[in-house]
């Protein structure tokens, strides 16, 4: 095993609470009607290309990408389009969505290989792979939902030296990537090979936090058993520290290179891809399967049966909560994603999407008392910041709407990991103010650049 590495500055160590780590992935049955939101990626929502009454097959394209950082949307089931309307997403906003009345039998679109057989031979070339990734609507499934094909398109004059697989899963509670690594080890490794071929490199590094020793050992064993097949892939254990899975942090930890401020990771010759996305790429390239399902961890200390479920997109989250033993009493926080970077939800019947890595149910005790007191200038936030920023200062100037100061103090470098707010003894919502400042400062910078 390689020696454990980590990023040098900042970071915190929240309780890990990987409650569902030993729960095998279960297939979750689809409900009668599924609601597929058209905006499932970071960019603009996809354009709907089906209309009411259309019969759609599983895997059929129903929404085409609109704009650069947008991704295609496919039908996760076979059935008839009941309507194209709006649906309330987890934030309570209404977003466009396709309602599909499902038929019992899954009927896949043509060209999809439905067997579970492991295909190791990569037939496509680099460009074909990227096109396939794009067609299949694959996005970063760690939560940010940035379209993966954009990452893989290495700009001219740059060279991708490493494919880094982000298997850190530094978010507490979540175990979906860990379970995938254990259960689909070979498929995952072929996925890494595909990525390496896509960007023309012979180095692939899988970064995993050392609290997932089982996965590290299994991966190393598999790689050693098939040396020729997985040549160039390495497993790099990382220290269990949040935010180890931050893109910039994992590059720094593994290669020692720092992504320059305001630049993309490709500047350091690295392309970072999430575990679930890697598996999705395997499915897309080898089996021609578009992205229509993912693993969702349903967890929480008071949840009866924390579990990892394979869910087709569009399944309402409250059904998943039922499957995990129902909604426990006194739940005050329902979170879409992990506790550090996930989003609070207003309603529990929002549809699962490409970025839904987990559904976390917490009581007030788990979330901790949030009574706000005065800043005592202890500087813990600055110590915890992995980006070397001064959150207390950014909070203050953002509150005063002094956006020249926020920019001068590198607010745009904030990765919104939440380490500062986590560690703050005065419970100040530092990140709220920083996000506000970041949005405003970003708008000012964009307006200035346009001139």
């Amino acid at each position, binding site marked *: 095993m390689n020696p454990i590495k980590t990023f040098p500055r900042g970071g915190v160590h929240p309780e890990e609470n990987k409650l569902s780590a030993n729960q095998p992935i279960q297939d979750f049955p689809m409900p009668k009607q599924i609601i597929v939101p058209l905006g499932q990626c970071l960019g603009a929502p996809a354009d709907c290309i089906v209309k009411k009454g259309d019969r759609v097959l599983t895997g059929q394209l129903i929404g085409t990408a609109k704009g650069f950082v947008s991704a295609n949307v496919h039908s996760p089931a076979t059935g008839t389009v009941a309507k194209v309307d*709006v649906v309330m997403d987890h934030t*309570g906003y209404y977003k466009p969505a396709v309602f599909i009345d499902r038929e019992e039998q899954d009927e896949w679109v043509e060209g999809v290989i439905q067997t579970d057989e492991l295909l190791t031979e990569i037939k496509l070339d680099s460009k074909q792979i990227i096109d396939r990734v794009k067609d299949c609507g694959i996005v970063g499934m760690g939560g940010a939902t940035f379209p993966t094909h954009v990452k893989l398109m290495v700009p001219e004059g740059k060279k991708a030296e490493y494919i880094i697989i982000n298997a850190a899963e530094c978010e507490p509670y979540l175990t979906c990537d860990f379970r995938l690594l254990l259960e689909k080890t070979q498929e995952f490794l072929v996925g890494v090979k595909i990525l390496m071929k896509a960007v023309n490199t012979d180095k692939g590094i899988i970064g995993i936090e050392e609290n997932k020793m089982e996965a590290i050992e299994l991966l190393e064993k598999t790689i050693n058993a098939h040396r020729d097949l997985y040549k160039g892939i390495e497993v790099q254990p990382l220290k269990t520290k949040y935010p180890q899975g931050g893109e910039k942090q994992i590059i720094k930890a593994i290669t020692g290179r720092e992504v320059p401020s305001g630049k993309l990771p490709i500047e350091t010759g690295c392309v970072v891809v999430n575990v679930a996305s890697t598996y999705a790429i395997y499915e897309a390239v080898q089996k021609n399967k578009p992205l229509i399902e993912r693993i969702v961890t349903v967890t929480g200390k008071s949840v009866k049966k924390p579990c990892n479920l394979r869910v087709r997109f569009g399944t309402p989250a409250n059904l998943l909560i039922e499957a995990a033993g129902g909604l426990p009493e006194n739940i005050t926080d329902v979170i879409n994603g992990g506790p550090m970077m996930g989003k609070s939800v207003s309603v529990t019947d929002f549809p699962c999407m490409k970025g839904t890595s987990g559904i976390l149910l917490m009581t007030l005790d788990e979330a901790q008392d949030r009574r706000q007191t005065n800043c005592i200038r202890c500087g813990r936030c600055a110590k915890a910041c992995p980006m070397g920023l001064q959150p207390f200062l950014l909070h203050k100037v953002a509150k005063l709407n002094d956006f020249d100061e926020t920019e001068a103090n590198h607010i745009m470098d904030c990765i919104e990991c939440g380490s500062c707010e986590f560690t703050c003894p005065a419970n100040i919502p530092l990140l709220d103010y920083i996000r506000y400042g970041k949005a405003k400062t970003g708008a000012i910078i964009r307006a200035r650049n346009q001139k």
Partner: protein
Amino acid sequence: MSNTLLISLAVLGILGGILAVILYFVAQKFKVEENPLIDEAEACLPGANCGGCGFAGCRALAEACVKQAAEKGNIDGLACPGTDMGKVAAVLGLTAAAFEPKIAVVRCNGSCQNSPAKVHYEGADICAFANTLYAGEGGCSKGCLGLGDCVKKCNFDALHIDKETGLPVVDPDKCVGCGVCAKNCPRGIIEVRPRGKKDRRVYVCCSNTDKGALVIKNCSVGCIGCQKCLKECPFEAIEMRGNLAYIDPAKCKACGKCVKVCPRGSIHAINFPAPKPETPALQGAEPVVKPQPKPELVEVKTEVKPENTVTA
């Protein structure tokens, strides 16, 4: 003893004198020649530097006025929203367009009673941030978040959050209609409208353009886009913006007919006398149509007294 005193006095006195002379010459040397009209024009402006005119402050507007007056001979297009520009024009020896006093209007009535909270917000008291996080405590994604970005930005102390309703209330005595609040509302709920004749105005107190069914889910007084008001209006002053009725202040004659037909009580009429069949303001109204005794509507009416007319 007296010697010390005298010497100190003399030294300090002479020092003061020398410095005064130096200061005088320096001031002469670095004097900036400015058109005295700018000062005069600035004196006509409120001096609050609210930025509502689009300039950095009142002096910047005054400078622009003087400049344009010298170059083009008019001050068209330059206006302080809170002041009669006629005064400035008079200073510059010109005439300005007629001044129409304006006031900020909060187009949301989703108070704690009308749109009860379904979730509980904890975090920074910034509407612009909360807007990125969720739809709102009541669930309406176009409604007021009640965290008071407008209140914080108001330069005239004309807005405050009503603790009972959780909504911002405009103080008609203090509001000059500069529009800073409207610019800073992340949901565009606040609109600057003309105060209207006798300070009477009618507007739709809702900003939700969603379909009626979605509005009803979250709010008991939101506009559902039924278009009854549109059909009722004799002046074609009402138009639909999505599923939201909008009363064009330029065409509205403040007859108040739409107020009575609205099934949701979304249309508010301000500074009208209490609804009696014989009121002169509602002359054209048929007595058959019973005025809707919506509690919040009456509240608004009694809250603002008719005498409240602020025209500069």
